[in-house]
């Protein structure tokens, strides 16, 4: 059966990729590793959900078997959610098929039986367009497509797992911060802050406008003033708030990658040549220690 085969370890992304398939008039076939995940996706618009049964709890370990299924079923695309597990699985399947793969697409659309994908290079400075034909693989970040509805048929499939890698232990990551990707407004602090207590300046503004506080990588990874979940950028969180306000953030490309889809970008920085101003809708060139408390006051009213 032709169609788009889909896997993600996040049900939300699976639903969104099903939406992508339906949008393009393709049959979505979902792979899952558990009955429970299959039930949760039962009404998400897939044509069929295949529950994989086998000897491993790691989806990555079914790469070779999944590659064979895709070939036998005449799949036209394997679309996988862009998470650590998903990217691993996707690239391994592409390796076994020795086929084309586009990672972390920015967009994908069909034209004359070819899939035209765009993605970012150089930390977001450059956009590349690639054309795929024949069985190919893509990974799809969260939030790209609208989910749909519709009941799927359910089926189980025994697959041979590669059990050379085995799980010894799993420990949940305790998320200390908030999920910035869902925040409506974000106030972002950068390395301009002198000391951790000065985060209060950002929190005061955030409280007044109902925003979450995010930061640049260095604030989280070097200074450890905010949890790792709080940093925004290509290696951190990608945010899509209505409003993003930065203070003392220079706006290096790796950071700006994470705020590209923000509705409105506001920058406060002492350096008028800071790249953040090129990425901003509104800006004030000035000392955050002066500007931010004034802005907080002004927005209280």
């Amino acid at each position: 059966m032709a169609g788009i085969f889909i896997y993600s370890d996040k049900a939300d992304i699976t639903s969104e990729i099903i939406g992508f398939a339906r949008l393009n008039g393709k049959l979505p076939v979902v792979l899952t590793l558990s009955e429970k995940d299959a039930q949760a996706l039962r009404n998400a618009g897939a044509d069929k959900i295949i529950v994989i049964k086998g000897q491993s709890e790691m989806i990555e370990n079914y790469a070779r078997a999944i590659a064979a299924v895709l070939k036998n079923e005449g799949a036209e695309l394997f679309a996988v959610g862009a998470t650590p597990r998903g990217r691993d699985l996707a690239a391994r399947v592409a390796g076994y098929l020795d086929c084309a793969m586009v990672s972390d697409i920015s967009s994908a659309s069909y034209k004359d039986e070819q899939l035209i994908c765009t993605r970012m290079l150089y930390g977001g400075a450059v956009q590349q367009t690639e054309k795929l034909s024949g069985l190919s693989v893509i990974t799809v970040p969260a939030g790209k497509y609208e989910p749909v509805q519709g009941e799927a048929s359910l089926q189980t499939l025994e697959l041979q797992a590669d059990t050379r890698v085995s799980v010894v232990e799993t420990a949940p990551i305790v998320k200390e911060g908030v999920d910035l990707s869902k925040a409506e407004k974000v106030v972002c602090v950068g390395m301009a802050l002198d000391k951790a207590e000065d985060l209060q300046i950002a929190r005061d503004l955030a409280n007044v406008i109902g925003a979450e506080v995010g930061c640049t990588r260095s604030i989280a990874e070097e200074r450890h003033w905010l949890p790792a979940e709080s940093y925004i950028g290509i290696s951190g969180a990608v945010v899509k708030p209505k409003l993003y306000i930065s203070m003392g953030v220079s706006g290096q490309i790796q950071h700006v990658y994470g705020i590209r889809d923000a509705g409105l970008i506001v920058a406060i920085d002492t350096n008028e040549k800071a790249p953040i101003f090129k990425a901003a809708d509104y800006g004030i060139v000035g000392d955050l220690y002066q500007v931010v408390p004034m802005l907080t006051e002004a927005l209280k009213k």
Partner: protein
Amino acid sequence: MSQVIACYKWVADEADIRINADLSVDLSKAKGKISDYDKNVIEAAVQAAAALGGKAVGVTFGTADAKPSLKDALSRGLDEACYINAQEASQADGAATARALAAAIKKIADVGLIICAEGASDTYSRQTAPRIGALLDLPVVTSVSKMDINGNILTAARKLDDCMQTVKVELPAVVAVLPEINPAPIPGLKAVLAAGKKTVTELKAADLGADLTPRSTVSEVKGYVMNRKNIIFNEGDLAEQVKALAAALRKEGVL
């Protein structure tokens, strides 16, 4: 099984990229560098080779421009390097890159561990380690933030979205490491001098016997510019500027 392979890539420094008015991309002023994350890969390979009692060998697939990478890579503690010098590297996608690296690795005897970064700082495709694993049919462990080698068993901590997962694998294997795996020290002068005396094996495309054609077709490469208003409030004193900003935010309806 004692040799440890560090796959690394010589990339254009993103800080030097110029985007022309017509959105074409100018790399002519861009200096080359070892992809940031690959410095951690090299350090991880040096440490793993010590644990396994073998050599750490760097493998890179690049054009003639990648030659300066060798001295840099070797000064970071690698014992030897293998340089696939091929013009095809400039057009390579994830498939061609993995085929080139896998073919070169096959020529190296006694490989116990192959280390890659999750992705390179130019393309950040995160395909190389899993693809090499598939091509050589070796087990793969990605997103590794910590690893220990005990005899022939590698134990790795994987940093996933929702959990830390500890996994175990018997060598040989392929791993993709995260930058946090080690601090990748800056090489000292002595190490830089010693690098010049280390062995480099240079391979040409024809030596590999591998197909180096990409599987996907790149149809366009252009600069990304954000279309933003770029309004800086600079009229009057700071108080007036802040007032103007507050008014603009109200008008935009984002509060």
